[in-house]
Each structure stands twice: as C-alpha cells, then as structure tokens.
C-alpha cells in the first residue's frame, strides 16, 4: 500500500517535469502545425541559462526568481528570433521541409550550447536546498520535486487553458488552431498568432528546462533525451490538445514509476507502448477529435 503511494508520488513528480516540456511543443504544433525538433534545445538552453543565473545571483533566497527570469529571457529572445528569422520563411513550404528546418536548428543549437557552456556537467541546486526536504512516512522527498514542480505544472495548465478559452487573444490562437483559413477569413492575422504561440511555446520549453535545472546535471545532449519523449506525448495527446498533454504526461509518469517498482525492464518502453496502445484505440490521440472531412 505504501509502495503504491510512493509510486504515485514519484510518478506525479516525473509527470510534472514531462508536462512542462511537452505542453509547449503541443501548443506550437497545434497552432503552427510544425513539430519543432529544436524544442529540446530550447529546454536545454533554458536549463543552462537558469543554472548560470542562479550561480551569478548567488543568493539562494532569490534563486527561484532567477529560474523564472531565465525562462522569460530565453523565451522572449529565442522565440521571436527563431519564428521571425526562420520559421516565417517556410510556412508556405511542405511539412517535411518545415520539420527539417527545426531539425537543422536542433543540430546547430546543440553545438551552440557546447560552445557557450562547455561539456562539464553543470549543477546548481540552490533552489532545491532552499525549499528543503519533506518526509512522507519515513521517506525523504524534496519539496521542490514533490510540491513546487507539480504546482507549477498545474498552474501552467490552468493559466494556459484559461488564457486560451477566456481571453480574446487566446481565442484567436484557438481559432487558428482549429481552422487556419476560416480564422484568416474573419480577419485574424495568422502571422501574429504564430509569433505569439511560438514565443509562448519557447518560453514554456525554457521554463521546463529552468525548473529541471536544479534537480539534474546539465550535460551535452540533455535536450535530445527530453525531446523524443515529448514527441510521444504530443502524438498520444491528440494534436494541439493541452489537456491531452497533461493526461498523457500523467499516464507516462505513473506508468514509468510503476514500471520501476514492479517491472523495471519495461521502464524505457512505457511511453512508446502507451502511445501505440492509445493510438490503436483512438487513432486521433487521447483528446483528438476525429473530424469527418467535409467533401
């Protein structure tokens, strides 16, 4: 019984982290219809920037703010830069080419990271130490992973859903997600919506990285690990489905931690098996709607 509780707690913590990365990717894919392979690089850059900033500030009390600032900065700089500088040039091209542009970007950013931060693992856990441990039964958790990360993830989900459903700006984004041509027909400037959605997506990736930074060593290639998992989340969730991403992240998180407890050999393949199983039953993804094409 206690084992079950522990597995759930571990699963939650992991799901929170996965969600933070996948949600941005889902949003970007929903709006721009581009699967951004460089999303993992933005995650990594967010993480590195956060670690550097926490180190620079030096005061542990301010470290949480430093994380948020780093994410904001990376999102605000990299988002528009990439969208305007690169993606805006290829919206009229085939999907394959769009995908490949982000693949190229991913390769470039991998080396940029290495040139900026080197290969030495970077570890800055001031925020984790700041929040201290939490004891469940006789097991020590860190408050950072058990409370802060799931809270931030939940808050991000709620804010995002509120923003998309309740604000005018958010609704324009949703309109473009559902039907780009119809949205443009009623006078929505799709290009601005793209810029906005991509910047939010980049910011979320960076925030995911910034949040993960205090819990893990930053090494070259850290973005690669995150990105394939996020791909699985996007497809399993259903295209552009924010809530779907949350549920999928939760399923993967729980699946993974139960695997570690009861069938360790399966741990790595859990996300993929889950995806195959979901798509077998629901070909449009967990929350995807199978819309009959109008003919």
């Amino acid at each position: 019984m206690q084992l079950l509780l522990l597995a759930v707690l571990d699963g939650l913590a992991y799901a929170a982290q996965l969600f933070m990365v996948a949600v941005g990717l889902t949003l970007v894919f929903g709006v721009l219809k581009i699967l951004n392979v460089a999303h993992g690089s933005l995650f990594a850059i967010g993480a590195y920037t956060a670690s550097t900033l926490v180190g620079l500030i030096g005061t542990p009390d301010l470290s949480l703010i430093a994380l948020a600032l780093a994410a904001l900065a990376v999102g605000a700089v990299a988002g528009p830069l990439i969208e305007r500088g690169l993606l805006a040039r290829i919206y009229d091209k085939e999907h394959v080419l769009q995908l490949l542009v982000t693949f190229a970007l991913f390769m470039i950013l991998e080396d940029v990271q290495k040139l900026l931060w080197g290969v030495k693992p970077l570890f800055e856990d001031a925020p984790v130490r700041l929040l201290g441990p939490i004891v469940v039964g006789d097991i020590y958790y860190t408050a950072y992973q058990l409370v802060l990360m799931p809270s931030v993830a939940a808050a991000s989900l709620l804010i995002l859903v509120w923003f998309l459903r309740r604000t005018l700006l958010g609704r324009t984004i949703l309109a473009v997600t559902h039907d780009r041509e119809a949205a443009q027909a009623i006078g929505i400037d799709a290009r601005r919506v793209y810029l906005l959605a991509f910047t939010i997506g980049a910011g979320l990736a960076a925030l995911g990285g910034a949040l993960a930074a205090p819990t893990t060593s930053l090494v070259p290639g850290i973005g690669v690990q995150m990105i394939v998992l996020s791909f699985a989340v996007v497809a399993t969730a259903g295209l552009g489905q924010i809530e779907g991403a949350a549920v999928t992240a939760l399923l993967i998180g729980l699946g993974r931690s139960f695997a570690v407890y009861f069938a360790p050999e399966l741990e790595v393949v859990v996300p993929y098996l889950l995806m195959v199983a979901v798509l077998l039953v629901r070909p449009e993804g967990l929350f995807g709607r199978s819309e009959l094409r109008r003919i």
Partner: protein
Amino acid sequence: MPTRLFALVGMALLLALAALQPWLRFVLTLALATGLAVLGIAVLLRAGQVSFGHALYVAIGAYTVAFARPLVGEALALLALAVLAASASGLVIGLFVSRYRDIFFGMLNLAFSMVLYSLLEKLYWLTRGTDGIRIARPDLFGFALSARDYEWGLFALAAVFALTSGALVARYLLTPAGQALSALKTGETRLEFLGISARRVLYQAYCVSAALAGLAGGLIALATLHVTPLLAYWTHSGELVFVAILGGTANMLGPFLGAIVFELVRVYAAAAFPDAWQMILGLVLLVIVLAAARGLVGVIEDAWMRARRSK
C-alpha cells in the same frame, strides 16, 4: 535530365574516387548503403509521409546479419536474410502504421524504432547491449577474400544494388500504385472514391521502403563488421530524412547523391571543426531547405536545363 547517363557517370566517378582514395571505398560503400535506405524514405515522401523511425529496419537488417553470421558464411545469403527479416517486419508493422497519416505516422514509426532500440540495449545477454556484436568477415561470391578485395567486392555490390534498386523503384513509381502515392498526398478522398484503398497504396510503399532499409542495414553490417544499437536510434532515422531532403526526392539519384554529400561533409566538417561539425551539417541543411527546396538533384536539374537552353 538523362538520369541513366548521370547515374552511370556518377558511378564511374565514385569508382575512380574509391580507387584513388582507399579510405573512401569504405565511406562510399556506407554512403551507397545509406542511399538505399533513403530511397525508401523518398518513396514514402512521395505520399507526403515522413517516417521518423526507419532506422528500425536498418537495424533489423544489420542485426539479422550479425545473428545469422555464425550459421551462414556467404555475404549474399546474409543480405538476403537481412532483406527478408526487414520485409517481414515491415509487412507486420506496416499493417498497423499504414492506417495513420502525418505526425501519427511519423511518431508511430518513431515509437517502434525506439522500442527496438531499447530492446537492443536491454536484451544484453542476446545483443551485448551498447557494446554491439562483432561480425566475422564472411565469404563474398563464394570466395574468402582478403580485407581489401572484400572491401572492393562490397563496394561493387553496393553500387550494383544502388543502380538496380534505383531503376526498380523508378519503375514502381511509374505504375498506377506508384503514381497513386503522390495522389494519396493530394487527394486521399478521391482515391477512396475511385475504389482504391489508400491504405493499401501506402502499405505497399511501406513494405518497399522497409525492404530497402533492410538491404541498407545488411550492407552496413557487412561493411562495418560491427553492429550497435545506435543504428536504431531516432537521430539516425532523422538523418535518413535529412539525406532525403538534401539529395532531393524528384529523381532516383537524389538519395544516393544526398548520402554521399552528407558523408563527405560530415567527414570534412569533423576533421576541420571537431567541436562543431554538427553545426556545419545543420547549416548545410538550412541552406538547402531555404534556398534549394528540391535538394541537390533540383540544383543539378536546373543547371542542366539552363545549359540546354543556352545551347
């Protein structure tokens, strides 16, 4: 553009290169093999479908050679087995993935390749994990060749397979089912209302691509004589798509041209900038996509047309 002439001239050029620079023999053999897998990717791209997991079939082909080598002494037989195993897997997996389109198609392929990758790493007692399996050099054409002759033999084999596969695929693409591939991209509904199963069209192409990737994997295993799970990793699948776009898919030369340029750029970039070769490759890809979306064959085609017009 006279594709056949270009193919033969290109092959002669490769032969000369391989003769002048012994190390290129191996690199070019790998490039031609990769080109075969990319040819399969190009077939799927006709239907607008991007597989982010075809390294799966490359790895199946390669590991088939590794597993069968203790029992089979002839390289050609090993290749046949590699193609067989990859095709069989394609036949089964294709039944499932041919129902899906676009990102779902891409991601399901990714999922299958990642599952295989994990298995290759996990089933340590069987696969030796990341250490990989060493393959004893087999006979070729029934002869126990010296290392050098074996390299030449494999190079020749890869060249022959490249030429024949290119010709066969070109022919397949001209048949109704082959033509229906790009029809699937532009009008799947229409296809269904003509009484044609779009799924079967894609399934057929998928099996062709799996077989080609298996052949590529077999050749790669025979050339490197060492296989590792990295063959199945998703970045390797991504590379195949990369090469397809680099070379261009309009013409059967594209995949091979792309593969050769990719390998050479990587070699020279890695030699000149060991710390930033990935960035160079990324930049090359960016330039191609932004400036020459039809890939290298597109560039050549344009040049050829211009030359003919100015004549």
